C-alpha cells in the first residue's frame, strides 16, 4: 500500500451503476427475497440468469436513459447459500458476516425499544431469512410494473420467497415523491448533497476519504479504508467474487413528520425563543425554517448555514466548499457554531475539518455514498395520520464498520464537540437522526444529553453570545429494518447466473 503510481482505474462496465451515480428515475421498488425454498427446488442460477440482462452497470447511458433497470444486493447469509461465502473462517468483513442486528453492530446503530432488531420488518420475516434485495428503477409507473413482474415471476419460477417489509399496501417498498421533487425527504429537506467525489488517487500523499478506492473492493494501493476481502486474491475465491463490489447498508427509517413539524412550530412560538431571536426580525414561518435549518446545518433547499447563515440562497443550494474551523481562534471549532450548531445533522455526519478526539484515529472523516429515496404518502397538515412513511436508505461503503457504523455511532453519541458549551462529559446526539436512549439503555452512551444547543447573539447586547438550549429532543425516526448487502460486480453476478467464476 505504497508508491506513487496512479491507482488502477476500475472497469465501469463491471461495476453496478448505483455505486457511481445516483439515479433520478422517479419510480423505484426495492424487492426483498429469501433463498429458502420449502416446497420447490431452489434455482438461484435461473433467477440471476433472468435478472442479469436488466442489471445496470456504471457505464454512461448517454441520451438513452433506460426505461427500467435494476441493481442487486446479497446478504452474507445469501452468499453462504449461494456457495460464495464460507460458513467458517470467511474472509468477508466480520460486521458483514454478523449482520446489522448483531451486538457489535448495534453498539453503533443503537436500535432500542420500538426500533429494536427484534421488531424489524414488522416481524413479517426473520432478519436471517433476508438473502437478496433487488432495487428496480423505472421512468414510468408502467415500466416499473413490468420490471417488478419480470423479477417476481422469475422468483416464483425459481423457488425464491418474496419477503414483504411493510404492513401497508402490498407490503413492498415503493419510492414516493415528496413535494414533486425526487430529491426531497419527508422532513422537507433536499437530500443527496455533499457526496464523495470518488476521485482516483495518484499517490499516498493525496489519498483521502472521498476517493473511489475507499468504496470499491480490490484497490488497496492507496486506500485509507482498504475494503475487504482484498488480500491474497489469487488464492481466495471470496476475494475474487467480491472484487469491484461495494457494500450497501440498506436501512429503512420511519420518519415521524407530524412530531417533527409540531416540534418546529413549538420552538418558533416559544415565547423565550421568540424574545431571544427578536433581533433576527423573522416571522413565525421564517422562524420555523430557521429552526429546521439549525437542526440540519442546511436550509431545506440545501444551502449550508456556513455559507448562507441568514436565509436560503439558491446559489448555494448544492454548495459544499466550506469548513468549520477558524484557524486563529482560541478554539478554532467554536466560532462556526454561531452559524452551524455542533450537533446539527450534516455537521455530525460530516464534521469536515473539525477537530476529532485521538480515539477517532488519524485517517480523517469517513464518507458514505447516499442513494436514498422516500417511501409512503406525504403528510398533509401537522396531525399524525398513522401512515407509514420515511426513508429507504441505501448507504454505500467499502467498509460497513469504518464508514457506515462509525458515522452512525457519531449520530448517536457525538463525543468530539469541543468545550465549553459542548463537552466530553455531556456529549450530544445528532439533532435529527439520533436514536434517543431510554433510561434502560442510556448506559450505552455515557453522559449523553438530549438537549440541542443553538448558539446565538445576545439580543440585548448583540456582540455578546447567548444560546437557545432545547431540552428533551424528541425521537423523530424509528428503524423499520436494516440489511447489510454486497453489491457484487457484473462478472460476479454473471457467475451466479452461469457458474463461470470471474477472473481478476
Amino acid at each position, binding site marked *: 500500500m505504497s508508491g506513487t503510481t496512479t491507482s488502477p482505474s476500475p472497469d465501469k462496465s463491471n461495476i453496478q451503476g448505483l455505486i457511481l451515480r445516483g439515479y433520478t428515475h422517479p419510480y423505484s421498488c426495492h424487492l426483498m427475497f429469501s433463498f429458502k425454498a420449502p416446497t420447490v427446488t431452489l434455482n438461484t442460477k435461473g433467477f440471476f440468469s433472468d435478472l442479469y440482462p436488466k442489471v445496470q452497470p456504471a457505464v454512461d447511458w448517454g441520451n438513452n436513459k433506460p426505461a427500467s433497470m435494476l441493481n442487486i444486493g446479497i446478504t452474507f447469509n445469501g452468499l453462504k447459500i449461494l456457495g460464495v461465502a464460507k460458513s467458517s473462517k470467511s474472509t468477508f468483513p466480520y460486521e458483514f458476516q454478523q449482520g446489522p442486528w448483531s451486538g457489535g*453492530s448495534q453498539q453503533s446503530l443503537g436500535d432500542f425499544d420500538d426500533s429494536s432488531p427484534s421488531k424489524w420488518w414488522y416481524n413479517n420475516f426473520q432478519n436471517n431469512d433476508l438473502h437478496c434485495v433487488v432495487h428496480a428503477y423505472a421512468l414510468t409507473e408502467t415500466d416499473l410494473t413490468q420490471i417488478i413482474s419480470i423479477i417476481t415471476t422469475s422468483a416464483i419460477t425459481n423457488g425464491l420467497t418474496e419477503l414483504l417489509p411493510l404492513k401497508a399496501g402490498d407490503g413492498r417498498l415503493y419510492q414516493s415523491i415528496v413535494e414533486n421533487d425526487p430529491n426531497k425527504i419527508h422532513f422537507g429537506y433536499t437530500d443527496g448533497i455533499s457526496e464523495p467525489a470518488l476521485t482516483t488517487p495518484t499517490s499516498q500523499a493525496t489519498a483521502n476519504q472521498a476517493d473511489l478506492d475507499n468504496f470499491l473492493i480490490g484497490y488497496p494501493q492507496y486506500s485509507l479504508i482498504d475494503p*475487504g476481502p*482484498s488480500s491474497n486474491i489469487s488464492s481466495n475465491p471470496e476475494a475474487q467474487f467480491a472484487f469491484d463490489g461495494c457494500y450497501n447498508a440498506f436501512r429503512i427509517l420511519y420518519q415521524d413528520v407530524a412530531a417533527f413539524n409540531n416540534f418546529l412550530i413549538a420552538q418558533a412560538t416559544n415565547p423565550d425563543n421568540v424574545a431571544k431571536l427578536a433581533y433576527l426580525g423573522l416571522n413565525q414561518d421564517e422562524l420555523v425554517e430557521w429552526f429546521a435549518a439549525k437542526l440540519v446545518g442546511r436550509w431545506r433547499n440545501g444551502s449550508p448555514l456556513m455559507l448562507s447563515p441568514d436565509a436560503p440562497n439558491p446559489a448555494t443550494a448544492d454548495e459544499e466548499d466550506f469548513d468549520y474551523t477558524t484557524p486563529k481562534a482560541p478554539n478554532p471549532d467554536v466560532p462556526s457554531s454561531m452559524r452551524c450548531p455542533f450537533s446539527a445533522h450534516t455537521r455530525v455526519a460530516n464534521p469536515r475539518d473539525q477537530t476529532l478526539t485521538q480515539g477517532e*484515529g488519524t*485517517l480523517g472523516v469517513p464518507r458514505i455514498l447516499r442513494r436514498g429515496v422516500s417511501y409512503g404518502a406525504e403528510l398533509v397538515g401537522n396531525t399524525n395520520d398513522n401512515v407509514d412513511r420515511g426513508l429507504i436508505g441505501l448507504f454505500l461503503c467499502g467498509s*460497513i464498520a*469504518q464508514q457506515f457504523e462509525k458515522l452512525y455511532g457519531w449520530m448517536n453519541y457525538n463525543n468530539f464537540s469541543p468545550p465549553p458549551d459542548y463537552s*466530553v462529559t455531556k456529549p450530544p446526539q445528532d439533532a435529527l437522526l439520533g436514536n434517543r436512549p431510554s433510561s434502560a439503555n442510556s448506559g450505552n452512551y455515557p453522559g449523553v444529553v438530549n438537549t440541542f444547543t443553538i448558539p446565538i447573539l445576545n439580543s440585548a447586547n448583540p456582540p455578546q453570545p447567548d444560546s437557545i438550549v432545547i431540552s428533551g429532543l424528541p425521537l423523530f425516526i424509528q428503524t423499520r429494518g436494516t440489511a447489510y448487502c454486497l453489491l457484487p460486480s457484473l462478472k460476479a453476478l454473471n457467475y451466479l447466473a452461469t457458474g463461470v467464476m470471474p477472473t481478476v
Partner: protein
Amino acid sequence: MATPLTLYIPIKQNEIAQLAAKALYKDFMAIVTPILTEIQIVHYARLILIPNASGEGINAITLITVFDGAMNPYLNTFWDSGFDFKALLNAIAAIAVTHPPLPILTESSFENFINSNNLSQPADLYQAYNDTVVQVIAYNQG
C-alpha cells in the same frame, strides 16, 4: 459504552513459539503504553500467558482489555495507531496455532483475526462506572 475484548490465542508447542511468547509478555507494556496513552480509549489492558494443563510450557496468549466505543469501527483505531501495534499483532499471529496468511496487512484480515479469537461479546461486561476514558481524564482535571 465500553467494549470488552478477550483475545485468546492458542500458540504452537515448539521452542521458538514458546520463547517468542515469553518475549512478547516481557515487552508488552513497553510497546502498548505509548500507543494506548495516545488514543485515550483504553481503560485497562493486560497480556497473560496461559500455562498448559500439564504445567509445562505455554498454551495460549490472552490479551484482556476494555475500550470505549463500538467494537467494529474502533478496532480501526488500534490498527491505525502505527507500526508498533501492527508488528505486535503480527508477532502474536506468527506463533498462533491458527492464523490468516502472514503478514497481516489489511484491515479486514486484522478485524477477522481479532474477532475470530475474541471470547467476549459487548454485553459480557460488568461496569462499576459508565464514564469513558476521556471523561475520567476530564473529571480528574477538574
